[in-house]
């Protein structure tokens, strides 16, 4: 029994290490890979369970991929499984990024690189805008959302209040608004 669990933990670490090497473009690619490996091939979890992991993982603070990995690993092989999945998925990007940072430091001031980086930086605002368009569809449900979004934007741009505090204020506003809506629905 113990041996079987150790084998599972090792299996999780290996596979999540592999997932970690190829998770481009946000968290959805890794969800697809878990689906293929552990829902379809090994049948350790069901498709519904995986869906729960991603939706719970997304609604908790932190990295969505990290959270979904912990939820999956815990379900599949307990605490050791959770840690194996988390560290498996973060070690490859960690190592790659350390290499990238060293290269960045070396080539940043090269005139050709500087010109290419000017182009890349010019693309950053459009990239953020395109992400914003998608978030807008999912997150803006009613007038309350517009008021909160505009207030958050104004506070972030024109005051010294830290963004961390603004998130906390948003959570508080959401809790209060949720109470108000429920009381209205009752009466």
């Amino acid at each position, binding site marked *: 029994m113990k041996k079987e669990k150790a084998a599972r933990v090792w299996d999780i670490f290996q596979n999540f290490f592999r997932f970690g090497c*190829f998770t481009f*473009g*946000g968290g959805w690619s890794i969800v697809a890979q878990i689906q293929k490996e552990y829902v379809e091939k090994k049948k350790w979890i069901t498709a519904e369970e995986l869906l729960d992991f991603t939706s*719970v993982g997304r*609604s908790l*603070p*932190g*990295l*969505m*991929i*990290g*959270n979904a990995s*912990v939820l999956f690993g815990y*379900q599949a092989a307990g605490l050791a499984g*959770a840690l194996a999945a988390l560290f498996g998925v*973060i070690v*490859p*990007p*960690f190592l*790659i*990024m*350390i290499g990238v940072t060293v290269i*960045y430091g070396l080539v940043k001031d090269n005139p*050709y690189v500087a010109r*290419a*980086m*000017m*182009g*890349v*930086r*010019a*693309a*950053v*605002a*459009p*990239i*953020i*805008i*395109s*992400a914003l368009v998608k*978030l807008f569809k999912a*997150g*803006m449900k009613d007038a*309350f*959302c517009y008021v*909160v*979004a505009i207030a*958050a934007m*104004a506070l*972030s741009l024109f005051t010294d209040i830290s*963004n*961390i505090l*603004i*998130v906390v204020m*948003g*959570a508080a506003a*959401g*809790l209060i*608004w*949720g109470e108000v809506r429920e009381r209205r629905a009752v009466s």
Partner: protein
Amino acid sequence: MLYLELFLSFLLIGFTSFGGMSMIPLINDQMLSHGWMTAQEVADIVAIAEMTPGPLGLNCATFAGSRTAGALGALSATLGVVTPSITVCLLAAVFITRFKENRLMEHALFGIRPVCIGMIAAIVVTQCQNNYAGTLLFGVSWQAILIGVVALVLLLKFKWNVPKTILVSAALGLVLGG
């Protein structure tokens, strides 16, 4: 101590962000207020993190930690940013059925999502101020604006993915200069 500061800073970022782009405003804030990075470097991390495998928040933590305090700094920042997964999320894993439809969490998120949208919109404004500034007419760089418009059209109209768009933008930057 720099390592501890990096750890705590990314711990705060981790606990107040809810995936993907929502991390960028928080990282921007922390990097600039500690003087660990310039706004231009923050733009660079976003682009680099989008081009390399791994979640955006993790890549930003590694890059920021590594730039400010080497490999150990990268480790400190990364451990900070994954702490929510090891703590809150692990607890949720134990009680998953109760977390699945938690009313209070849903209410809090109803407020957090638009806040993230507002903060990300604010980041767009500051990024524009930084990355389209130049010496030419009206203090703007026409090359950067041209590239920005091309990138926006590729992403929104032609549904290009981000790495491909970044490559084209880099090539345009190389050709147009700046």
